[in-house]
Structures are given as C-alpha cells and as structure tokens.
C-alpha cells in the first residue's frame, strides 16, 4: 500500500473579533490507497474544518496557519489556485452534508454533471452525456435517461446525494472526501447511501475520507478511525482498535453514551458531563482534561501520542509506561 495523502501538523484558525479561534491544532494523519478513513467528533471538534483545509476551501476569516498536505508527495498548500482546481474534483472529489444546497437549483442535473466531466475529462458533449447517464445508473438512479434532464428539485434528498456522489466519482478520483454525507438523510436512505459508497469503493479502489459524528456509521463503513476533540486527534486506530479496545477516556465515554441494545434490560446512559473546551483560549494541556474522569495533575501538560499497539495511537497520559506500570501493580494487588 502506498501513501495517497499525508497530512502533517495542520493548523487552521479563525480570526474573529474576540480573537483567534484555534479550530484545528496540529493534526497529522495518512490515508493509504483504497482505505476508508473516518474522522469522528462532536460539533466544534475541528473535523469538518480539517476536511475543508485539505482542499484549501477555508474562507476568511479562516486561515490555514501551518502544516503540509501531501498528495502523492506533492504539497497541495504550495500549489497555485489553477493547479489546485485541476486536482479538485478530478483527483480529489468532495461531497457535502446538505444535498439540497450542493446542486444549483436552476440548472438541469445533467448539465451540471456534463460541465464537470467536460472540464476535467476532455470529453465531447455527447460523450460526456453518455458518461453522466452511466454514472447515474451506477449510483442506482432509476431511468437515468429521463432523470438527467430534470432539475434538482425533482429529486428527493437521497437521490440528490446520489447525484452528488455520481458527480464526485465521475472523474474517477483517487480520494473522495465526504463531509457528513448522510447527516441530512433519513436512516433508511442513509443505509442505502452508505452501502453505495462501500460498493463503489470496492469497485473503483477509491480512498474515502468520511467525516461524521455518528459512531454507528463509522463502524459500518470505515477501516480506520480518527477521533477528534478540541481540534486535535485524540485517538487513531483500526475500527477494531477503536470499538473494542478504546484507550482514550474520550473515546470510551463516547462509546458508552450510545444506548446499547441489550435484551430486556434498560441501563442508564453514561454521559460525559460538561462541555467541550473553548478554542478561543484552548487549554495548554490535554483538551479533554476538564471532562475526564481520570484527570490527574500531569494532564495539565500536553501528552504525546502513545502507541498501545501497532497502528493505534492515543493522546493520553494514562498510556505512558509509568501509568501502565502502576495499573499493572494495582491489578496485581487486587489479585
């Protein structure tokens, strides 16, 4: 497997009246070819800002302050706007949360798709139309020959998101960034879209970066998970690592606050008390400290990433060798 995208120490801030809001505070991760990576986090965790920063879609007052975004080893941040435009939509495609506003309401769906195809693929009009119809069929839109000449308002929310996916995939991108693609949809439609994304990934080997707040969605489609909180990556690992052996107290809390469906029993939900940190004046130590049940003095200092196992890292002092030693001793005492 080769590294498709490598993000290094990305920092994005918003310059507001009150001061600098540090939305993304030094985020680094890699995406390999054919991988589905999920970024989960609550609102304000910086997950969407991270995704937008990758393609330089941050609008003022937002600024990308630091970091590299290496795509095939080339830094996207050093590129000029025309160079970026050639990559956007062609090699890296993006779909957004709201399928209602992502399409221009006064232009026929087909025309919008054809425009994208012709811009990036040098197809003639008839060829582009043919390709657009094929794409619509591929994403499961019935009778695409007729639907292609309809306007966006004649499509339902789920159908529009399918159109968006068709558009995003029409140029055979190597990376698809999906920012909360199913949040605005109903569960039954969400299931259809997620299945569609999985099928397409299998068929085209496109890497997917999926941004979501729904842990269920992540568990169903992703191979690797990044958990963000307070503008930082709290924990990263394979889905099995994260869901079966979560090592960070935040991830653990998040998993516990979902109602579990257990036969006949109703247990009280475990909630994480408190509210996320204010990124206007971010804490210098661990961002989760204030809400963490295991907080200790050491947490005032920013922890480094600890690696409990291969490919699994966690930003928490509890995993330092000292703490692990203590824990083992305690367990020894109890036995």
């Amino acid at each position, binding site marked *: 497997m080769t590294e498709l995208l490598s993000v290094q120490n990305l920092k994005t801030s918003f310059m507001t009246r009150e001061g600098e809001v540090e939305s993304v505070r030094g985020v680094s991760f890699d995406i390999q070819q054919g991988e589905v990576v999920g970024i989960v986090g609550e609102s304000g965790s910086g997950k969407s800002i991270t995704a937008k920063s990758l393609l330089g879609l941050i609008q003022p007052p937002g600024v990308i302050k630091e970091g590299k975004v290496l795509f095939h080893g080339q830094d996207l941040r050093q590129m000029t706007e025309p160079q970026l435009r050639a990559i956007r939509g062609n090699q890296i495609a993006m779909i957004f949360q709201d399928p209602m506003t992502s399409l221009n309401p006064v232009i026929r769906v087909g025309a919008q798709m054809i425009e994208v195809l012709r811009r990036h693929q040098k197809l003639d009009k008839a060829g582009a139309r043919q390709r657009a119809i094929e794409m619509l069929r591929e994403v499961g839109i019935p009778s695409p020959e007729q639907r292609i000449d309809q306007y966006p308002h004649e499509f339902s929310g789920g159908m529009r998101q399918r159109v968006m996916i068709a558009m995003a995939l029409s140029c055979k991108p190597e990376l698809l960034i999906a920012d909360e693609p199913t949040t605005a949809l109903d569960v*039954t439609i*969400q299931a259809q879209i*997620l299945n569609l994304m999985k099928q397409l990934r299998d068929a085209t080997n496109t890497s997917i970066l999926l941004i979501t707040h729904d842990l*269920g969605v992540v568990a169903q489609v992703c191979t690797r998970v990044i958990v963000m909180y307070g503008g930082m990556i709290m924990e990263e690992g394979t889905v099995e690592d994260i869901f079966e052996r979560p090592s960070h107290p935040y991830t653990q809390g*998040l998993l516990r606050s979902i109602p579990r469906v257990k036969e006949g029993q109703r247990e009280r939900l475990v*909630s994480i008390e408190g509210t996320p940190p204010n990124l206007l004046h971010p804490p210098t130590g661990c961002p989760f400290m204030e809400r963490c049940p295991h907080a200790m003095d050491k947490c005032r200092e920013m922890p480094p990433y600890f690696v409990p196992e291969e490919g699994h890292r966690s930003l928490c002092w509890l995993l330092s060798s000292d703490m692990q030693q203590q824990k083992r001793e305690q367990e020894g005492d109890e036995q």
Partner: protein
Amino acid sequence: MSTKNEVLLDVRNLKKYFPTGSSGFGREKKVLKAVDDISFHIHKGETFGLVGESGCGKSTTGRSIVRLHEVTDGEVWFDGVNVAQMNEKGLKPFRKRMQTIFQDPYSSLNPSMNVAQLIREPMEIHGFGSKKDQHDRVLELLEKVGLKPEHVDRYPHEFSGGQRQRISIARALSVNPEFILCDEPISALDVSVQAQVVNMLEDLQGEFGLTYLFIAHDLSMVRHISNRIGVMYLGKLVEIAPSDELYTHPAHPYTQALLSAIPIPDPKAAALDTGMLKGDLPSPMAEMNGCKFSSRCPFATEQCRQEQPEMKEISPGHFVACHL
C-alpha cells in the same frame, strides 16, 4: 415498564390536512394529508415514543395534540376532556398542563431574553405566584436542571446547545405540567450531550411523575427512553408496541426495514441490510388506495395495493396495520 392503566392522553382518529393551494381554476384543492386518521393513547407516567422518517407526520401529530395546529378532524382527550376543537380561551388551563420542548436549542429560546425572563414566561402567563415566588422557582429549577444560580441573568447565546436544552426543560417544568411533548429534543445535540439530556428527562419523570410524548428519528435513543413506541409512515401509524417487543419482534415490514437500517456502533455486527427497502418515500400528496407502504414493501400483494389495512392486535399491546 408502566402498567398503570390510567389513560392521560387519548388520541382518536386524529386528522390534520394542510391545504396546498389549488392546482388551477375549477379544480378541487389539493390537500396534504400530514396526519391521516391515527389513534393511540398514553398512560399516566408513561413515555410514548413516536418514530418515523422525515415527512411522516410525527411532528405534526405532536403539534396537533398540543393544539399548535387546528385539528382537521378527530378527538384528543386529555384527562377526560376533548381539547381537539376547543378555542384558545378554553384551552388556557390545558396549556399549563401540557408543555413542549422543541428540537432546535438555537431557535427555541428568544435571544433577547435572559434566562430568568425565559423561565418565568410560562409562569407569568398562568399567573403563577408573586414576582418573588417566580424568581425563587427559577433558581430552584436551574438547580434541578444542572445549571448554576449565576446563570440567571445570562442570555441564550452564552450557552452551549445542551445547556440551552436544559433551559427549555426548566421553562417547561416551571408551571408543574403533567404532560410534556418532546419534539425531537435531542436531535440537534452531540452524542455525549444527548445522553445528559435523556438522563435528565428520565430523572425528572421519576421525580414528578411526568408523562412524555417523545418524538424522534433516532430509533436507538427512542427505544432507550420509551415504554411504548408508535411507528409512523406517511401520516399513518403502522405499528404500536411496547418498546422491547417492537425491537425484538417487529411485525410490520416498514418497522423491520427501519430497524435494520440503524448503523450499529460495532464493526462486527452484520453489515447494513438494505435489501428490503428500495426507493424513496412517495410524495405525501399522492392519493393511494391501499397500504401507503405498498410501493416500497417487498412483500406487497394485490390486496395491499387495493385495501387499507386495519390495526390488529397480534399479541397483548402489540398492534400492527398490515395485511400479512
């Protein structure tokens, strides 16, 4: 589970149609049948969950019950009185007993009022004690919902979504209601905050013996909080059952599809099963003779397309509207 038999709210054949403008001269007016002939009841101290996808009429049902909408037809019996056709004057005492918590914590609080004014509003409407009593009550309620007394003169924009929802809850509780309509109260909140709010609602129910109508599209949360659940599809109730029964033995094909579509936060769980449900919701404007779900149902027969199914009790307390 609640086995109290006293019925607090009894909805009978509730209908709510919205006119959507005529489609041209001389033609009859088109109507949107948002809620089309539904009946259910809620016992005292119980939580009744109402689930369904967007546009199924669950919110309209709730809003018709608290009479935010005029009711087109049907009866809403609240503690033995039919409030469905009552005028505003007659409704006033019931407005005190039925309170509402809305979905969007950003729009449900007037941004120009501070916390004290917000929580006092219903008390002022219903002439609840003196100014001093009201203020004491505000402080008491703030504590109850986990906010601090110094929050009393802050404005909504100074709070997070979860805290705002706590203010809404305090406001609803201020006049000692018996029934609270929870109109998607947690949908706009983050997962960890949802749990806080749900726990609080459960605690308050235990303390004050409240009755909830809990409307949501998040099925796992609804299962957690509800005693009984009604599933709605295109303005119709298709299934009513005790919540565990509904999840373990869903009888209606739509309920089955809905449940199988919930993404389970466990990578080992079986992959999403969408084989059952193809296509989108049909337009609610379309006239359908038979079962509303027949256009998407994998088991639909000719009978389904012709005849509307009646609610049948298939096991104690478990009702299904399906021919099969």
